[in-house]
């Protein structure tokens, strides 16, 4: 069953830069997909178009039955409620505790407290932070902070979890821990995972589908792919 269907999508910015050109791809429900590519390849634009942070200039993008390309600004929230997003820089609220940060996502949607509590506890337990509910982000390590961000992203039980370089700020061991958590989410709840990353080791180890974007187009799409980089790109990992 297709969760994401992209047909001939283009993204051309007002200054004339083409970020995505004639991109077509489908992603099934429950898949785990890595999106790799060098800086400026169009990888981030592709990811952003999936959660409608960017709107395609041309073409069609359907996510979970919603035509993202036709979605009006005022209706974007309907799409976002089906998606969880995790970033490299965690984006936690520093004055809120772990519990409050995760609950924040549900509070803004207007859920009653009696529904919020069990959902938050379930999400926090899934990332293994049940004993740090009352801690502030400043009292947590980088890996723990990312786990809070993951808990916040999955608390509303999304069909799709988009991870934009979630291990970019973490050391290799912590990165592995985070990947384990994300893989578990993928297996346990059949949540589709799309992860943009530069981490060669992780990609090669996981043996999942790998989509490589270079110069605004998909240059490779392997079901059990490995990290491939363009000759001109220097990769630190």
């Amino acid at each position, binding site marked *: 069953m297709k969760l994401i269907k992209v047909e001939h999508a283009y993204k051309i910015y007002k200054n004339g830069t083409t970020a995505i050109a004639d991109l077509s791809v489908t992603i099934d429900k429950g898949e785990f997909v890595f999106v790799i590519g060098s800086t400026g390849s169009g990888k981030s634009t592709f990811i952003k178009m999936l*959660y409608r942070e960017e709107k395609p200039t041309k073409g069609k993008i359907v996510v979970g039955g919603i035509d993202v390309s036709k979605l009006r*600004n*005022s209706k*974007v*929230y*309907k*799409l*976002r*409620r*089906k*998606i969880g*997003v995790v970033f490299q820089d965690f*984006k936690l*609220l520093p004055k809120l505790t772990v519990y409050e940060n995760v609950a*924040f*996502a549900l*509070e*803004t*949607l*207007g*859920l*009653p407290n009696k529904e919020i509590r069990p959902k938050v506890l379930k999400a926090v337990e899934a990332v293994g932070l049940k004993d740090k509910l009352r801690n502030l982000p400043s009292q947590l390590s980088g890996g723990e902070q990312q786990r809070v961000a993951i808990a*916040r992203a999955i608390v*509303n039980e999304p069909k799709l979890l988009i991870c934009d370089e979630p291990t970019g700020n973490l050391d290799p061991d912590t990165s592995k821990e985070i990947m384990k958590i994300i893989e578990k989410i993928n297996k346990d709840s059949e949540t589709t995972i799309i992860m943009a990353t530069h981490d060669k080791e992780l990609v090669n180890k996981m043996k999942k589908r790998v989509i490589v974007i270079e110069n605004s187009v998909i240059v490779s799409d392997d079901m059990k792919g490995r990290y491939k980089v363009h000759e001109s790109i220097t990769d630190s990992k």
Partner: protein
Amino acid sequence: MKALRILNRSIRDSFKSVFRNISLSVASIACTTVTLILVAISLVLTYNVNNVTTNLEKELTIVVYLKKDTTKENRINFENDLKTMENVEKAQYKSGEEWKSEMKQESDTLKTTLDYLSENPLLDSYIVTVKNVNDLASTTEKIRKYEFVSSAEYGEGMVESIIGIFDAISKGTIVIVLALVLVTAFLISNTIKLTIFSRKTEIEIMRLVGASNTAIKLPFVFEGFILGVMGSIIPIILSIYGYVYLYDISGGFIFTKILQLSAPFPFVLIVALFLLVVGSLVGMFGSYRAVRKYLKI
């Protein structure tokens, strides 16, 4: 229920934000307070000026003096004509003799002078009250056309200039107040702008987790509303107690009985309500402007 929870959350967040950016909030509240005090003064002034003008207009009469040799028959015919004239409300006859005795009572000098004269120099007259003061001049003109009418006057010039001055005061105050209202809205808008910047991450997360645009914007609009309402508290208290105090110490008049102040109640309560509405609207307008300009969602 869901809408109520979002509303409740918005109100809670806006209060938090008012106190989190306390220095800016105080500046906005102070500016609103000053503006609304001036709005209150302007309202009190305008309303009372209108009141005084209406009183003055009510007092306006045409005094018609008949020539000395007017026969009784002509006078009665004239009186009948006056009473059937379109704009005439009332025409009260006052003879030369009545004027004389009235003037004699006013001062001893006048009494001696009038007693010295063998013949009464004062003319028979009519004091005419009109229905519509705007047609006062044309009615006076009509009366002047009678051949036995010596003069018909209503105090041209003086009345117009008094009303003109009052009118200029009202208009001037309104212009100043409007300018201040705009400045206040701009300041509140600036406060909300900084709030938006300080809550950038929060807004970003709200958008990512699928909060509707209304749920994101509402706290900011409420914040403007709260700033406006807080700014109207002092002006409301001042206008209620200040006006009642002014009315009490002046006895309801300023300088002369013609310049009569309006009764404090329900006038001050209407002013208070108006200030509250203006304060909250200015606050909401300011925040709406900032939300539209800086909250790109």
